[in-house]
């Protein structure tokens, strides 16, 4: 499996933009028999390279499951997930480990820095694990952009929440991964630190050309993204381009309205029109 492959090759037929991540009929069922829960139900979705996409939805909508499957953190029940041109649903644990190390970055809600390492050691950890030397220029760019120059020798316990999350972002980006997956990155932060983190995520897409897929339940956070994907009951329930907090809220409202009367028949997936900012 190519570890040097940092550019996606697959081109989507529809818009001519490279696809960083792609799901086809992706399904995840937890449990079996009567207790089976369809967390993800035959989802088809493409994530464009160089874009900042937010995945939203109510609790249990399958948004986290979708991300886990796209990032190779969990096995799919059926369907396929691709990272670039690599089908990851068939990879074994070792290959997945290498994939995560070299081609994917993660930002977690609870930062998950290693307490015994300094900020700098935390940032370069994925490269250390891969036995690669950090690209100094890129490292410096990251550190400067994130404003971490003065904090590199500090341990996580000596950093504020916002600083810890910025270190985590630097860690996610240091290996120049094809996709960065962020799971509620502002969930444990106050609104100011959260805003800082989100603007940096956006800058890393706009200025550094990265691809970010973020799971969140905060419409304000989602509004930082280029595109918001709405999930409900394990299916895509809406797709909002260039979202604003209002359009996102409206989209979420729409989901709730939709659910109420019909009891949601399994067949019809209502699709929220992005530009209209409301129901079709």
């Amino acid at each position, binding site marked *: 499996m190519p570890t040097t492959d940092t550019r996606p090759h697959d081109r989507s037929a529809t818009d001519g933009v490279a696809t960083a991540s792609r799901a086809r009929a992706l399904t995840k069922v937890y449990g079996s028999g009567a207790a089976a829960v369809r967390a993800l139900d035959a989802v088809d979705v493409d994530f464009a390279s160089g874009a900042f996409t937010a995945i939203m939805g109510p609790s249990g909508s399958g948004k*986290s499951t979708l991300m*886990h499957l796209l990032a190779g*953190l*969990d096995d799919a029940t059926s369907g396929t997930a691709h990272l670039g041109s690599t089908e990851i649903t068939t990879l074994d*644990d*070792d290959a997945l*480990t*290498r994939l*995560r*190390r*070299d081609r994917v970055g*993660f930002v*977690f*809600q*609870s930062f*998950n820095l*290693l*307490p*015994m*390492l300094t900020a700098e050691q935390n940032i370069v*950890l*994925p490269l*250390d*694990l*891969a*036995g690669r030397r950090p690209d100094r220029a890129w490292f410096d760019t990251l550190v400067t952009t994130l404003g971490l120059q003065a904090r590199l020798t500090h341990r996580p316990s000596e950093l504020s929440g916002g600083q810890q999350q910025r270190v985590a972002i630097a*860690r996610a980006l240091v290996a120049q991964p094809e996709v960065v997956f962020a*799971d509620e990155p502002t*969930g444990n932060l106050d609104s100011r630190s959260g805003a800082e983190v989100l603007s940096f995520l956006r800058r890393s897409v706009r200025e550094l050309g990265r691809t970010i897929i973020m799971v969140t339940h905060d419409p304000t956070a989602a509004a930082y993204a280029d595109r918001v994907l709405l999930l409900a009951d394990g299916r895509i329930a809406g797709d909002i381009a260039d979202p604003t907090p209002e359009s996102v809220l409206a989209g979420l409202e729409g989901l709730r309205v939709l659910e109420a009367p019909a009891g949601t028949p399994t067949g019809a997936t209502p699709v929220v029109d992005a530009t209209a900012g409301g129901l079709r």
Partner: protein
Amino acid sequence: MLRLTLAQMRRSLGRLVAAGVAILLGSAFVTATLTAGDVITRGGYDAMTATYGDADLVVLPTDGRLSTLLDATRGTPGVTAAEPLVVGWVSFASGRRTVGETVIPVPADPSLASLDVVEGRAPAAQDEVALPAASAERLGVGVGDTVRSTWTVWSEEPATTATPEPAEEPTEEPAEEPAAAGPVRSDDELAPQEMTADVTVVGLVDDPHAAWARYGGAGLAVLDSVVRWSGGTDIDDVGSAAVLVAVDGDSAAVRSALAQVLDDAEVLTRDEAAARAVESYGGGNVIVMVVLGFAAVAMLVAALVIANTFQVIVAQRTRMLALLRCVGARRRQLRGSVLLEAGILGVVSGVAGVVVGLALAQAALSVLSRTQNGVPLPTTVQPTLGNMLIPVLVATAVTVGAALVPARAATRVSPVAALRPAEAPTVQARPGRVRLASSLLLTVGGLVALAGGIVLARQGFGVDVMLPLAIGVLGGGTSFVGLLVGAPLWVPRIVSAVGRPVAAISTSARLAAANTLRNPRRTSATSTALVIGVTLVVMMSTGAVSAQASLAREMDERGPVDMTVFGMPGEAVGDGLAEGIAAVDGVDTVVPARYALVARPDGIETEAVVLDPADAGILRDEVAARALAEGRSVVPRSWAGDVTSVEVSVRDTALLEVRPSATDRALLTTQAADALAVDDVPSVLLVRIEPGADAMGVLQDVRDVVADDTVRVESAAAERQGDQRVIDVMLAIVIGLLGVAVVIALIGVANTLSLSVIERRRESATLRAVGLSRRGLRWMLATEGMLIAGVGALIGTALGLLYGWAGAATVFGTIGDVRLSVPWAHVGIVLLVALLAGLAASALPARAAARTPPVAALGVD
């Protein structure tokens, strides 16, 4: 609170099980030891009972004469037989072979016999004896052959035997009897005198109940002979004796009748007498006490493991404890809950330990009773209530005691902690000043005492040998306790120092090294548990190796020739014999030498061997070899002390230039021999054994070669090897006993690692998510385990060497030169075992950690 405690225990089950295993091992150790002690005591009791034959009653004289007692007993109605049980000791010789034998009288009534005559007949006259088959074989005699008996008499016959001393119990070592009976009469003329007489072997005896196994077997003779060999003339001279009584009918009635008649004797049943005798000799108890000492070490280590576990458990429950405080639990209740948990754990593990201990004892017994013949062993263990209760109580006490400090930590959790965000749980107990001060005090004070002991031992003369040893042991123990108390202060530094080079190996290793420093107290407590066992193991082996090295020199000086073959004085040893010996496997060189009896100035004669300086290579003692090369004869220091010349005579008298040595046989130069006119006949062969050869085997082979010749073979090398073997066996036993402590400590390592794994679940998942492979994660934990265990082993080795040397210097400082040696093989094995054990200890925790899915990193607690 009980329900809450149980619920908490259920949640922490895995953690508690590991800690419980540590206590279980300790408890099993104690149980097995106590049970073994019982078996030993019971074996002794059974043997003692067997010495009384089928006697119904045993009369033990407290004061007064045996003959009077005997008569009075025989005159009591209901008594069918009364026989004295006297234990004599005599040496039998046939040709050059000698056997020391315990002898007891032939009872007139066969029901009072403890030995069976299996061949020939029982002795009936003074010049007759029946021997155990083993002794007869050793002497090379059979029924009808004659042997020479030799015994010691301590004075001219005392006309009257006004013996004021109380007769002692028959359990007294028989060898001491003549001495005990003799010197009390403080006549100046008392001198030992060797007596000999020829006796005929009329029978062979068997000891079906192993009654006399403790004495190495016993033979039979008529009462008069036994008394005579004991150094007396009539039965009242015998120091220790008992009267065995056979009874017709109601023995209780006869007993009270006897008690009325005999005012200066005790009348006991056979079982009572045996119990009394076992109690007074109590050899098994000493062993049990010593082994219990090792069990105590194991328990101490288990206590450390427990303390560590509870510290972590309390730390992990910080939030819940705080919550309990919030909803109204008092401090006392929290402490009570933790202590209750410890108590339950202690009782459960203790009981399980008792079961395991009994099973082990039973297994050992089954194996032994199948392999050991002649030693009477019970076939099943009989657990007494005490032997089962004591381990449980000890286990519970140790567990609760170890949990005291963590329990206090639990009470210090403030209710506010429940409101704080969940962070990595830590109980931040800073190493206090009290700890530092007491540790320094104990360590420095102990080391000073240890050094004082060594200095005292070196000064040596005039001081009791035991005094420096006692001071040294006290000092060593105190300083070790001090070091252990201060362990949280200094062990983390060593872990960090060792971790630095390890960290350079790989990222996994660096993470591992960093991990060991995250919780310095836990790491140091885990290492310390291992330090205790390893220190003791290395100390023992260092002491043993140093002892062997120090003793080897002493032995070289004492017996400078590996093996000496003495022919008949004045007759040359045949060339064929020398060649035959030289051909034996393991024999390096054979040198014929002249032999003489040298009279020193005070007239006492000693054996001397003449050695040409050219043949000095045969000597093991280099000092003696050099002296001979310088033209000085080597003489025993006991002759005249440290002199440089001494006048001696063989046929002629001459003043010799000498070098005194610890040897007990003189080595004369050729010139000296000529000056003394020693016979120019090589009647002795000096043999050097190849290095590394089995000296005992060689001795046996040489004895076989010379079997037909009337020669005597002596081997200093075989003696030395025997001594070494004793040290080796002792060392192996001690290390085996300490091994339990080491195993418990390793369980502690595994426990600490698995606790860390549980704590670091999210971290492991993060590492997996950012690209650490499963193998990498496993390696990380393996490295951590090896680091903790390795540091423990390193520290233990260093301390063990130190204490081992100090001990050797103290013990052998009084004797002479001390050789401090490093038991490289043992040290290497200890370190290797520690690393492998660290690796093994990490196996299960690492599997658990590697199973953590990377998704867990995303979860919010």
